[in-house]
Structure formats: structure tokens, C-alpha cells
């Protein structure tokens, strides 16, 4: 699809050129046609202003580069030239050149022969939220923390993340059937994003002296993650095409390089206790313990360098005009060998992870139309990931050490299959019946690996499903479809992670290591080393991606061209997932509904109206193992109205009005008397609501055949009422009194004016 973007101005020009070639050059003298086939080049220059304070446009300006300043230069450039003698096209485009979202592209090509392009593109994300902090070196690898006397009295820090992309691409047809393509893309990413760390004492993973025995003390810090990394992607392939065969073989390499390996904060002085008061003062509890201070100052790993090399062969083959196959084979070797030298305490003999992962991918698809009314599809895909990373003891717990765990190994084999048939029935009906199959074998778990916070794991999952669809063209102007799909996922026996002790199951301790088979048929426990029927406890929890799941969905749609002027689209879908596992906790079920209608009305040749409404309604039931039962609902309505018209020959106007209203509900029940009482007193979590209204208007007036002026007006109002960073005027306060804020009600107006002139 990117390739399409790199062929501006193709369509009409080439069609008309083809007409000229087909019907003779006499027409070339015609001025009107000459104007049509002449590539359009233009430059657009102007200025824009944005109202309000910077924090009043933090959502509006999250990505568009219109947040920091009040006024901007608008400069776009679009040059398209064709050398008639050689058939060489030259394009030079610049967009948003006055903003920090600028894009520049230069390319040349001779269709059917060669092509190259160079692109430079900037993208920025400005976090809509502002940190108030005394942190020194926010966004560096060595931030210095010191406690603010009072929350909100620090400096405001806004986090930006900028990406700069450079892409070079070239293509060459070596013969009518052989093409070479290559591209290289480099992305530099710089800035910072929200991050942090925290630690609570007492903790089983931080025994004395790290956590002082019997002392409850904890701290949370907002430490922006420093980002200074680059990504390179290189793709080169040779494509061969004949009447029946299309074959593409190539190499895709991807490389990630991070300038930062770790970050470590320094903490000056004291932090706050849970009441927000300075630790260590009379009545405020003990001073920040040396152990906790040290843990908070420990290095935090940042993403490691990595690379992957993929070789692939893909294509298709037409056995007959109605029976075709497509296929792909890919072999990928990935590695991560970033040196551990900046960290202490690596296991003996390991200077890096030494990660090596080889993945083979096979795919074969067949399509056939054995009779005119019947079309068939069969597809199979198999992926075999082989993790060859050395296993080492990276976790030694206890003081003195009592338990040791290793890294894991993720070597899944995934098989997907699909069979589908579509038959053209009488009276305009068309029926489709399809079957799906997926199996995932996660491989044998490393027996010494530690798995946190889970009650069980499953080596194998298997899902089978089917779908039916009936589509009918009820008339030349009305088509409708209804579809139903259903699938069921189950899997192998549940296994107990080593990190889960047998406490409570007859007082047994872990007699061995590793993932242990749970066998519900056994009624007595003779040792956790061989089995553990405790994983079938009602309060235990199992990963939602592994539990049994029944999924059902129904979907309906209709397209109706009611009149020559009016067209309507209707759609509705409902779906439900029900999860089951040995326990009753975790994700239990989810429901979704989505409905909508779109309309388009042509008032006249010069005026057109569009409008839509849609509603999404989703609910998830999530039960904490001992804490709460939650029903999470998201209800979202969106509306759009558009108009575009040409009131005068020289004047074009248009507008769009968009409204989204979104509400998240967090209904909880307690799961215990104490929690139910607490919820009754709290009133539960309030709803989170989001409402955004956007009005966009434009007008363009052609001054003459070669110049025009354009005005754009955007007015946006945003209201976000949430409790993530504060509730009812009480901010969430970090242990150094840092806070995060945003303006919950924002209103911004953008006005831009440009002068557009055609280039010769």
C-alpha cells in the first residue's frame, strides 16, 4: 500500500495519455486535453493560529504538532513533472513543512522500468498530561529525586516523543517478468514517556536487611523513561511473474539499537509516608530505610538491542483460471545479545542473555471455483518457533538464598486451518459455510522458570469453530447479509507453576521444581513434585488466553440505495465470550454489541450531505481472586455530519461535525463482607466519561486558473472526567509529592489561511 502512496498523480494522467496514444496525436493540440494531461504542481503557503493556553489543547495537540505555539507557518509543496521524451516522472512533495510533523518526499520513476524515492517524515507525540515534580533530569538515565514540600509546588514537565523516519526505496524491472525491489528505513526515536518504579516492604522477594522485618514502608516514584533509540528495517526481494506463477523471494532484516541500557534514580533526602508527610519526622514513622532506598535506586533495565533476519519465498500459482494457490515460507533468525555489563549480579558465566530464536513459517492456500456457482477456499498455516536461549539462574531469592529460578523458554507451535465454501443460490441468495481450526502447543515449560501470580498454565490449546453467512441482493439497490460464527477453545490439563507453593494443601511444601501436573482425579496429596490438585481451588486464577472459551457472534448489515440521491447503510453485531476454568476467578465473560447507520444524500450535483450514528456497548466480567467481582461496561456513541458543496463556480465549501460520547462504568461487588461494606461507603468507582465535539469548516476560492485561497476553521471541545491521576480534587501523589494533571475540560479553535498557487 505504501507503493500506492508513492505514485501520485498517476491515474487520470495516464488514462488520458493512453487515450492519446490510442486515438492519435491530433487531439494533443486540443488545449483542453493538454490542460488535463499536464501534471498539476502547486505550492501552498499560509499561517495558522490556535487559541487558548497550551494545556487547553493537550488532547487536540497530542499528535498534530499544534500544541506548543500559538501561531504556525503552513507550507505544503506538490511538484509533479513528466518528461515527455523519456516518460520519466519526477515528484517532490512537502507537507506540514512549518510543523514538527513535516514530511518530505522526492522520487523519480519511469513506469515499467525503474523507480526510486527518498522520504523524510517526522512524527511527534506530546503526552496530554503534565507532571508537576522536583525531579532533576527527568527523561535522563540518572534522574535525581527530592521530595517537594507540598504537592503541586514543583515545575511542570511535559513529555514528548519524537520519531524521525528516513526511507529510501528503489525498484527496477530487469526484464518483463523480473523485478528487483529494495527499501531501507531508519527511525530515530527520542524523548521520554511515563514510567517509574515502586517497592513495598515487607516483601518476600526483599527479605531483611532490604526490608526491615516488621516495618511497613513503601514508595512510588514517577521516573520518565528516557528514549534514544533507532530502528532499521531493510527489505530486498526479487519478484518473478509469468502468466501462471508469481514468485517473490527476499530478505527482511530488522535491527533495534538503544543508546540507553538502564536508568537509575538517586534519592536525595526523605520521601513521603502514606499520609503524604515526610518520613522520619516525629509521628511520621521511620525514616526511609536504607534497604528500600537502595531498591528504589537499583538500575532499571531499558529495552535491549535486538535483531532479526528473515528469508522468505512467497507467491501464487494459477493451476487453471479458476483454481489457484498461494504460499509462503519464511525462516527467521532473531538474536538478542545486549551486554549485561551495566548491571550487577548476573549469573556466573553469562555476559549477555545470548538469546537466539529460530522461527519457520509455512502457509499454503487454495481457492477454486469448480462450478460457476461454487467457490471453495482451503488454507493452512504452521508456525514453529524454536527458542534456543540458554537457561540460567537469574533469580536467587531469600537471605540466605533459599530458592532459585531461571529464565523461561517460549517455543510455541501454532497451526491454523480454514475451509470455506460459498454457493450461489436461487433468488439472489449466496450462502457461505466455513470451518476454522487452531492449535497452539506452547511446548514443554522450563521446569525451573518462575511464573508470577498465576495458578496454572496449559501447554496446549485447541480451538474449533464455524461460520455461516447468507447474503442476498434483494434488488439492484438493496443488499443484505446475516452471519453467525461460533467457536470453542479448550486445552490440555492444567499445570502448576513452580512459584506457587502448596501451602494450604495439607501443609506440604514444594518438594521439587517446575511446572507440575494437576490431576483432579486424585483425592489425596502425596507430594507437590508429582501433582497438585490444589490448582482446582475455586479462588485460583488462570490466564484468560489459556482458559476454555465459547465464542458466539452474529452480524447483520444492509446497503440500500433508496433513491438516486439517497443511500443508507445499516449494521448491527453482537458477540459473547464465556470463559471457564477450574476456578471461578479472572475473566469470566464478555459481551459486545455494535450498531450503526450511515446515510449519504446528494442534494444536487454541487451539494452532498453525509451523516452517521453508531453505538458500541461492551461489558467484561472480571473477578479478582479474593477482592472483588467487577462488571466493566463501555458505552460509546459517535455521530458525524458532513456537507460539501460548490455554491459558486469558483467557491468550494465543506464542513464536518463529529461528536463522541463515551462512558466507562466500573461496577464492583466485594467478594467479602468487609469489602462490601467498604464499597457501600465508597460508592464504588465513579464512571469515566469522555466527550469530544469537533467542528471542521473549510472554504476554497479560486482567484483565477492558477491561484486560490483557502480558509480552515476547527473548533474542538473535549471533556474527560477520569480518576486515574486524581479524584474529586484529591490528586494521586507520588512519594516525592510529584503529581500528574491535565485540564479535564478543553476548548480550542484553530484558524488557518493559505494561498495556493499552481507552479508552471
Amino acid at each position, binding site marked *: 500500500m505504501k507503493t500506492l*502512496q508513492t505514485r501520485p498523480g498517476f491515474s487520470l494522467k495516464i488514462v488520458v495519455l*493512453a487515450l492519446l496514444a490510442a486515438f492519435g496525436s491530433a487531439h494533443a493540440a486540443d488545449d483542453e486535453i493538454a490542460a488535463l494531461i499536464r501534471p498539476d504542481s502547486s505550492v501552498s503557503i499560509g499561517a495558522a493560529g490556535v487559541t487558548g493556553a497550551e494545556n487547553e489543547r493537550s488532547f487536540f495537540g497530542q499528535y498534530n504538532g499544534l500544541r506548543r505555539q500559538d501561531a504556525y507557518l503552513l507550507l505544503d509543496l506538490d511538484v509533479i513533472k513528466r518528461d515527455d521524451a523519456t516518460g520519466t516522472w519526477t515528484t517532490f512533495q512537502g507537507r506540514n513543512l512549518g510543523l514538527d510533523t513535516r514530511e518530505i518526499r522526492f522520487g523519480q520513476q519511469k513506469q515499467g522500468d525503474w523507480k526510486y524515492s527518498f522520504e523524510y517524515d517526522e512524527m511527534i507525540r506530546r503526552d496530554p498530561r503534565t507532571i508537576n515534580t522536583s525531579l532533576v533530569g527527568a527523561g535522563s538515565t540518572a534522574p535525581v529525586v527530592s521530595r517537594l514540600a507540598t504537592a503541586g509546588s514543583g515545575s511542570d514537565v511535559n513529555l514528548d516523543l519524537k520519531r524521525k523516519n528516513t526511507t529510501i526505496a528503489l525498484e527496477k524491472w530487469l526484464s518483463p517478468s523480473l523485478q528487483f525491489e529494495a527499501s531501507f528505513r531508519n527511525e530515530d526515536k527520542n524523548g521520554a514517556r511515563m514510567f517509574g518504579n515502586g517497592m513495598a516492604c515487607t516483601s518476600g522477594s526483599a527479605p531483611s536487611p532490604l526490608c526491615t522485618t516488621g516495618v511497613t514502608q513503601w514508595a512510588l516514584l514517577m521516573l520518565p523513561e528516557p528514549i534514544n533509540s533507532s530502528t532499521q528495517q531493510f527489505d530486498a526481494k526479487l519478484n518473478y511473474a509469468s502468466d501462471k506463477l508469481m514468485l517473490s523471494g527476499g530478505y527482511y532484516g530488522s535491527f533495534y539499537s538503544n543508546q540507553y541500557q538502564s536508568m537509575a534514580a538517586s534519592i536525595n533526602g526523605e520521601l513521603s509516608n502514606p499520609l503524604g508527610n515526610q518520613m522520619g519526622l516525629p509521628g511520621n514513622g521511620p525514616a526511609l530505610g536504607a534497604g528500600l532506598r537502595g531498591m528504589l535506586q537499583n538500575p532499571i533495565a531499558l529495552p535491549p538491542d535486538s535483531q532479526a533476519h528473515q528469508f522468505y519465498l512467497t507467491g501464487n500459482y494459477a493451476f487453471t483460471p479458476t483454481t489457484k494457490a498461494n504460499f509462503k515460507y519464511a525462516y527467521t533468525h532473531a538474536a538478542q545479545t545486549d551486554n549485561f555489563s551495566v548491571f550487577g549480579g548476573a549469573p556466573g558465566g553469562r555476559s549477555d*542473555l545470548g538469546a537466539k530464536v529460530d522461527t519457520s513459517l509455512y502457509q499454503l492456500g487454495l481457492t477454486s471455483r469448480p462450478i460457476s456457482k461454487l467457490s471453495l477456499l482451503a488454507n493452512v498455516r504452521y508456525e514453529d518457533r524454536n527458542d534456543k536461549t540458554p537457561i540460567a539462574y537469574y533469580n536467587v531469592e531469600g537471605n540466605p538464598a533459599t530458592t532459585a529460578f531461571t529464565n523461561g523458554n517460549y517455543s510455541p507451535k501454532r497451526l491454523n486451518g480454514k475451509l470455506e465454501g460459498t454457493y450461489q443460490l436461487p433468488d439472489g441468495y449466496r450462502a457461505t459455510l466455513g470451518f476454522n481450526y487452531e492449535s497452539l502447543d506452547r511446548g514443554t515449560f522450563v521446569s525451573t522458570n518462575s511464573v508470577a501470580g498465576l495458578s496454572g498454565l496449559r501447554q496446549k490449546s485447541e480451538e474449533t469453530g464455524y461460520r455461516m453467512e447468507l447474503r442476498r441482493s434483494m434488488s439492484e439497490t438493496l443488499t443484505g447479509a446475516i452471519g453467525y460464527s461460533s467457536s470453542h477453545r479448550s486445552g490440555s490439563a492444567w499445570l502448576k507453576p513452580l512459584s506457587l507453593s502448596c501451602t494450604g494443601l495439607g501443609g506440604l511444601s514444594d518438594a521439587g521444581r517446575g511446572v507440575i501436573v494437576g490431576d483432579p482425579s486424585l483425592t489425596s496429596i502425596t507430594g507437590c513434585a508429582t501433582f497438585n490438585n490444589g490448582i482446582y481451588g475455586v479462588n*485460583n486464577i488462570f490466564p484468560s488466553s489459556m482458559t476454555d472459551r465459547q465464542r458466539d457472534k452474529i452480524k447483520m448489515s444492509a446497503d440500500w440505495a433508496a433513491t438516486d440521491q439517497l443511500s443508507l447503510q445499516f449494521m448491527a453485531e453482537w458477540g459473547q465470550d464465556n470463559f471457564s476454568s477450574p476456578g471461578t476467578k479472572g475473566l469470566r465473560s464478555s459481551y459486545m454489541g455494535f450498531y450503526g447507520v450511515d446515510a449519504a444524500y446528494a442534494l444536487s450535483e454541487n451539494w452532498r450531505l453525509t451523516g452517521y450514528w453508531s453505538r458500541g456497548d461492551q461489558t467484561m466480567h472480571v473477578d479478582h481472586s479474593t477482592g472483588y467481582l467487577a462488571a466493566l461496561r463501555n458505552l460509546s456513541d459517535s455521530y458525524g455530519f458532513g456537507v460539501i458543496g460548490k455554491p459558486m463556480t469558483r467557491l468550494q465549501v465543506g464542513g464536518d461535525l463529529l461528536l463522541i460520547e463515551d462512558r466507562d462504568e466500573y461496577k464492583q461487588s466485594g467478594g467479602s463482607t468487609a469489602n462490601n461494606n467498604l464499597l457501600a461507603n465508597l460508592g464504588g468507582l465513579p464512571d469515566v466519561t*469522555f466527550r469530544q465535539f469537533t467542528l471542521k469548516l473549510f472554504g476554497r476560492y479560486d482567484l483565477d486558473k492558477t491561484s486560490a485561497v483557502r480558509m480552515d476553521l476547527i473548533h474542538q471541545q473535549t471533556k474527560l472526567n477520569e480518576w486515574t491521576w486524581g479524584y474529586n480534587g*484529591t490528586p494521586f501523589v507520588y512519594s516525592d509529592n510529584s503529581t500528574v494533571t491535565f485540564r479535564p475540560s478543553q476548548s480550542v479553535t484553530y484558524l488557518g489561511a493559505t494561498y495556493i498557487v499552481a507552479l508552471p
Partner: protein
Amino acid sequence: MADGRTPSCTNCHGDSDLHTNNPAKLKERPATDRSFGKNSKTPVEARNESCISCHKKDAKRSHWEGSAHQRADVACTSCHQLHTAKDKVADKRTQPEVCFTCHKEQRAQVMKPSHHPVMEGKVACSDCHNSHGSIGPKLVKRDSVVETCYTCHMEKRGPFVHSHEPVNEDCGNCHNPHGTVAESLLKARPPFLCHQCHTPHGGQVAQLRGQLPTQPTINSSGKSGINYTQARGCMNCHTQVHGSNNPSATNPTPQFNLR
């Protein structure tokens, strides 16, 4: 002509003698043999064959046959405009409105506060999806969801000393790439998202600072309903949710993705 392969009208529309000659001298000429407008009677397969006969050499379209769009009878001209100077779907600023003609749920999602910059014209649907067919789910551009996401978010790729396996399996386990109200495109806020799989830290309900009938004391636990609900939620402490490459074997070890 620079490129001898450039089609003429009849390459796409058929010989169309009736249309060209109009022997009955009708006021409105008969339609071409193959037409592509919204009221076209030409079967979609025949319409698409006009395009595929030339574009079948394009490696990016090698898996069109059997793809979701092909099976759903989507015509090339459902998305592409030919007789215009600029094809809407080929420009990333206008491409989404073409895709949203059918994908209406995604149209609503990209307007939520946490979103990729689709409406801002910086990310297009085609940056992640190959609408002409792929071997990944949901027509993702590369061979799987994770490989597609890694093209821009390669720092999540690892492998790490301490992995979070759902990250390797499918980013969609936790994220909705089209947009959410929760920050970071999360499908649900922590702790509710994390508690779909994990069972940590006792029996608190999710709570807010300032909401408590009983205020915290200096001995209140850090593993509280407040600290795993507000700010970055569970990630306030388990900050390395995508994995950690910290090899330290000393307490507290990074196995819980704490550092």
C-alpha cells in the same frame, strides 16, 4: 508511449461496441461491457479481473485470492478511484475515510483519547494492514500481529531475561490498537486488565485516593487498592510489563518485572 503496458479504455471496460457505436442512437449510450460504478451489473470477479490482469505481478498482492476482502466480494473500485487525479485511498490523510465506509467500529475507536494518530493523518490503516491479503490474522501487514507491531514498537520485541509471554503471543491480548479511553490503548484499566490473568496482593477492591471513608495511616500497605488502581495501576511497581532484560540475581530479583 513510455510504458507499453499502459492500458487503454477497452482493456478495462471491454470492447464495448454498443457503447462506442451506439447503433440504436440512444440518447443515453449503452453501458460499457464492464462497468465499475456503484450500480454496476458486472460481477465483482469480472470487474476485479480487469485490474488483476495487470497488477497480479505485484508481490504485495500475491495473497489477494482467498483474502477476507476477496471472499467478501470487495471490488477494487470499492476502494480505489481511477478517473481522478488523486486516489483517496492512496493518500494516508484520506485513506481512513475509505476504510471506514465498512469498518465503522474502528471509525469510532480512533476518536477515543488514546489512539494512534490516524485522524491526524500520520498513521494510515495500510501502515498495519495489507488490504490486498496477507498470511497474518486480520490482514496484518507482516506475518503476525506482534511482527506488525514491532515494526514501530521494536523495543517490545526482546527476547528478555524476564519475558511476559502474552507480549510474545499477541499484543492484542492487552491492547486495542484502534483506540481506547484507558491510556496506552489498553483494553481495560489496570488492575482489571491484569486481574484477568493474575491474582496478586490480597483482597482489596479498587479504590481512589480521597474516596476512602477511612484515611490511610502511616502503616498502610503499599500493596493497596489505591496503588494498583490509580496512576499507572499495577505498573506503578511492575513497570517492566513488556519484559525486563535486567540479569540481576540479587534480591529483589527482577522476575516480577519490577526493574
